[in-house]
């Protein structure tokens, strides 16, 4: 990326997503947006991610919907079958539970079941994450379900530039992509992406190089990993940090190269550990690097429990910089 003026001014993740959708809509008339409250008379979404889009592109292309997640995803699928590229919002990830039939039995499978005659180029945006005291039904990270669903792709940006680049890539992609946003991280500022910046799906980024342990994460927890560097360095541990960016298909090449170098790996995410994304990566690594690892692959996720409301409990739920540092350090002992 060149050092343009655009890059100098920091933007938030929220703004980056907004700009990415706007740029895609400006570039391609077939990009359309739907979801609860997404149009401007409804404030462009509950936190304003789609603000300005309906004013600029019209309420035909940017539609607020009834509260009806099956109808939302169904409408997106149908429009995609006849040449449109819908960006559908399911307000919170827990509400994907209402639309699982449309996502899993239909969006993910129509290409295969039609023998390649049709495809479903939709993006499903959804937000989640602990931190705002929303309790048990509003904060789950369910990405493992969708990664376990052939036909779906799953992305989860951790910063503004990736948020932009992954959104542009997701909209371009000919297959359904679940795009996971983190609620508390929306206002995290970061380097502004250049217009048209693309982050290819399936490509991780090495956020920081290191020699002792590879730490893999994505979405908001990546920020905790970065914040853990100081404590790890104080303990003499040099961590290589990988932002997965795309959870499925995950970038085996980048991960393997890193683990080949460090011989140790920790995967950390906000979803519960058991049967989570970390399980697949650990299972793959123990096979790929059999006999070559210096420590067992570590996993650090949420405890096997719903998200609690009470602040001290909620704060102890998702991985923190402190616990990540400890887990990483312990792998080197």
């Amino acid at each position: 990326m060149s050092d343009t003026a655009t890059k100098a001014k920091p933007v938030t993740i929220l703004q980056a997503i907004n700009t990415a959708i706007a740029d895609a809509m400006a570039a391609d008339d077939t990009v359309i947006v739907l979801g609860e409250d997404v149009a401007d008379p409804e404030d462009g979404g509950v936190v304003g991610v789609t603000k300005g889009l309906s004013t600029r592109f019209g309420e035909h292309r940017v539609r607020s919907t009834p509260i009806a997640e099956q109808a939302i995803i169904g409408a997106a699928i149908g429009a995609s079958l006849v040449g449109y590229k819908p960006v559908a919002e399911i307000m919170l990830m827990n509400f994907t539970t209402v639309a699982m039939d449309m996502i899993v039995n239909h969006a993910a499978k129509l290409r295969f079941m039609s023998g390649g005659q049709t495809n479903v180029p939709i993006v499903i945006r959804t937000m989640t994450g602990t931190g705002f005291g929303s309790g048990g039904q509003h904060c789950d990270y369910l990405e493992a379900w969708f990664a376990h669903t052939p036909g779906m792709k799953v992305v989860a940006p951790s910063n503004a530039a990736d948020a932009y680049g992954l959104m542009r890539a997701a909209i371009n992609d000919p297959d359904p992509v679940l795009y996971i946003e983190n609620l508390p991280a929306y206002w995290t500022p970061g380097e502004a992406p250049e217009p048209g910046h693309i982050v290819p799906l399936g490509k991780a980024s090495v956020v920081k190089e290191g020699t002792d342990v590879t730490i893999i994460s994505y979405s908001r927890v990546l920020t905790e990993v970065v914040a853990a560097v100081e404590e790890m360095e104080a303990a003499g541990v040099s961590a290589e940090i990988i932002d997965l960016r795309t959870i499925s298909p995950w970038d085996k090449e980048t991960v393997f190269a890193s683990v080949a170098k460090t011989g140790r790996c920790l995967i950390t995410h906000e979803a519960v550990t058991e049967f989570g994304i970390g399980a697949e990566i650990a299972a793959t690594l123990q096979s790929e690097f059999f006999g070559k690892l210096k420590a067992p692959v570590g996993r650090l996720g949420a405890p096997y429990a719903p998200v609690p409301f009470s602040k001290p409990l909620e704060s102890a739920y998702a991985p923190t910089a402190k616990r990540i540092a400890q887990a990483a350090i312990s792998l080197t002992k």
Partner: protein
Amino acid sequence: MTSNYAPDGATQLEIYKRVALLKANDERSRKVIMNGRLVMPYYSYRGQEVIPSAMATALTDDDYWVTIYRGIHDMLAKGMPLKDLWAEIAGRVDGTCKGKGGPMHLTYPKKGIMVTTGIVGSSMPIANGIAWGSQLSGNGRVAVATFGDGASNIGAFHESLNMAAVWKLPVIFLCQNNLYGEHTTYEKATSAKRVADRAVAYNMPGVRVNGNDPIEMFAAAREAVERARAGEGPTLIEAMTFRFHGHVFGDADAYMDKAQKKAAMEADPAPIFRARLIAEGIATEEQLAAIEADIETQIDEAVEFALASPFPELDELTKDVYAQGAAA
């Protein structure tokens, strides 16, 4: 109310050609399965032929249709070629989905058959999206979602009809009420006296018609199509009919009322329609016999074509999951 939209003689003949094709195809399908030449889950639509025949005659090739597991009648009426269909249900490479979809997931976009779903209720949300596409591009194409009476009790029905009404989408919700949802009767599952009554909940026109009567069924279809094309939004059509056989091939149908079934089969809509066409001078016995003979020949050819077509190679297992091969 339907008289403005009644089909003329030529249109009736068009409808009949479809009815004859559908009826012959169902009979052949059951025979082929019975003889063990094909193995598949088969949902007979025998008795329901008039509904899609009249509906499809009111549409053009460009219009869209989203159907369900019990939908081969819909697909044939909308124009899916017999060979593509038979090769698909035989699981062969020449099938419309290369054999990967099978009888519950036949797709044929060339004639607007966009999705066949095996999930009750799921035809409707997708048809809405297709209709939204028509609305956005202004191409005037109508989308039909077909579904059963049982499906009118599932959440997707409600969400879809509401969204279609609020957005005034050019979509037609075609309920084929055959009085049973699997083994359960309409009354035991459905609180509304008539599915059509539910249109009130969406401030949408809703009509119950005798789906076995080609005149009545066509008129309702035509009116709904005109409304959709004129930008006046969706219509709910409840087409009354009866499923002559069990839910799925092999089902002993002990749960069906014997007398009701006997009466329905005696009122088989296909021969009644046929007799009327002759009685009213719209067609001659010879003409219809020739049409029917031609259909049999076409089906013969399709069956043989299908059974001669090869099975897909094993590498098809991981193809078509994503644009290029599998991702993981």
